[in-house]
């Protein structure tokens, strides 16, 4: 089976998941107690006529299956409906804010890789030494620390006491330096929260490889330790590490919600929380749809990359 066929098969397997997820998001509005038209309008008082208009615009007079298809059709064309709480089209708000969340998530991810992978490798190579124990304990504490608390502690130390970084906001229109200045603390908070995971999984992936027979063979042949680690072990440990990095996307997105709230950053996460508090259904549905789509396709990408690097599993 070639790579193209594999990708096609993976895509076909995604169909039920995508249908299920979109159906779930669509049904949110209808599962909520109350009249959907009034729910869409949020906390605003509305005349009978407005309600009738809303029913018309959101196709609420159609049978449920038709409503779903129409909603999906609109979404595919980039129309996620209109928020009556924020008085704006949902798509517009998402387009405006996604670069902020993207920058935050990407920098968090980079920090986690830059710190986590080397730490995991060192910890595995020096297994059962002091370095290994300290790394493991620090990593375990990192996994257990709530990201919002970490953010608050960073603000306390680096903004309030030392005054090095701003405590909130995001310089959207500022210079590069300005933006980095604002991004540093949130990126560290978000990054550390997943670094711990990177360390733990890199370590176990490396250990698995280091215990294989061919590494022992290489050692007995007199291959240098450095060559063994970079030439043999790391190459083979890369696959599990890659999968983990793909899995972290969900954590990064969830972490962004909390990080953006702590640092008052106007990204997608903060929008979601504000929309949930105001029961602004079109916004919540639109955001969730975008997030799930990104998740599903990033996971697919990781799967395909995985197969691309390791042709052995293509036939499974």
């Amino acid at each position: 089976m070639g790579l193209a066929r594999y990708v096609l098969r993976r895509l076909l397997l995604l169909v039920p998941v995508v249908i299920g997820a979109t159906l779930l998001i669509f049904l949110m509005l209808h599962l909520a107690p109350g009249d959907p038209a009034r729910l869409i309008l949020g906390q605003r008082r509305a005349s009978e006529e407005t309600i009738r208009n809303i029913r018309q615009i959101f196709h609420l007079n159609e049978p449920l299956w038709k409503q779903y298809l129409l909603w999906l059709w609109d979404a595919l064309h980039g129309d996620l409906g209109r928020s009556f709480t924020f008085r704006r089209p949902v798509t517009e708000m998402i387009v405006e804010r996604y670069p902020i969340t993207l920058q935050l998530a990407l920098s968090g991810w980079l920090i986690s890789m830059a710190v986590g992978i080397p730490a995991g490798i060192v910890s595995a190579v020096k297994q059962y030494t002091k370095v290994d124990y300290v790394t493991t304990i620090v990593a375990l504490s990192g996994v257990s620390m709530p990201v919002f608390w970490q953010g608050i502690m960073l603000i306390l130390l680096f903004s309030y006491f030392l005054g090095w970084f701003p405590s909130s906001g995001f310089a959207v229109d500022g210079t590069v330096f300005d933006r980095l200045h604002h991004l540093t603390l949130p990126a560290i908070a978000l990054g550390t929260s997943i670094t711990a995971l990177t360390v733990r999984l890199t370590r176990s992936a490396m250990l698995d490889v280091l215990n294989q027979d061919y590494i022992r063979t290489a050692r007995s042949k007199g291959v240098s330790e450095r060559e063994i680690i970079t030439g043999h072990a790391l190459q083979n440990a890369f696959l599990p590490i890659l999968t983990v990095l793909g899995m972290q996307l969900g954590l990064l997105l969830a972490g962004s919600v909390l990080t953006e709230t702590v640092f008052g950053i106007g990204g997608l996460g903060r929008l979601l929380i504000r929309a949930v508090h105001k029961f602004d259904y079109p916004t919540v549905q639109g955001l969730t749809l975008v997030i799930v789509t990104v998740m599903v396709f990033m996971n697919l990408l990781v799967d395909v990359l995985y197969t691309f690097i390791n042709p052995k599993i293509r036939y499974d």
Partner: protein
Amino acid sequence: MAQQTQPVESADTDDESALGGVLSGRHRRILSSLARHRGGLVGAATLVAVVFVAVAAPVIAPYDPLEQFVGPALAGPSTAHLLGTDMYGRDVLSRIVFGARNTLLLALIAVGISSVLGTIIGAAAGFYGGWIDEALMRGMDVVFAFPSLILAIVMMATFGINMYNAAFAVAVVFTPQFARVIRSNALSLREEEFIKAARTSGGTRRYILFKHVIPNGISELIVQTTINLASAILIMSGLNFLGLGIQPPKPSWGYMLANGRSYLLQAPWISTFPGVAIMIVVLAANIFGDGLRDALDPRNTERVR
């Protein structure tokens, strides 16, 4: 706990002792291996201590967690108020102690519901196979497609913001993980001799499912429960922090932390200590889970015979 101190040699010999089939030789080996896992023990002891604090909260807490101005507002830690007071002059320590109660209770409810749901779904999927398996597991894939915290947040918008809905949302989030673990266990059991024997001797499928398949996945279930307990507390605290879980004035660690942000400079203790509490509990659950997993992993279990 008594089993942990038993001599290891006896663990393998009397499989069907007074404790019957529940604690088989394998389970005893696991317990004794756990007893030798220092981290696992520390984690377990910490969890027991926290549960004790939660249960005995009214006795342990020095003040009423809701009563305002039991001391001056925003007072730092002192002998009268070990962890200081908040903006309404409430005792932070008392609120943390009662917060343990609320947070743990909800996390336990959530993990409890998801373990029951996940076990039934996973066992049925693995045992029956065919279209039942396909339908159930594709359903689980759908839930799994959402980042967990985000799914929980979105469910709050649908069902309304209160603590029981929050617990239910967290339960839904964790159900697929239980289902997957139990399913793979059930799949491997299907081919076991004793299941085949039960079948040939006329046991109905439902009887076999509940009498044999589910009880045999108990150890996997326990590990998954401890690991998920740690995540459940984190997600629950996240919801509380966002104001989507336990509603004030009921004390919760997440909300205390969020509330203290406005007074971070004058009274950093309001936000700091609840975070420490979350970290201690989650860390303990994680270490305990690690210990359990090591103990259950046949590769790591030293077989002392």
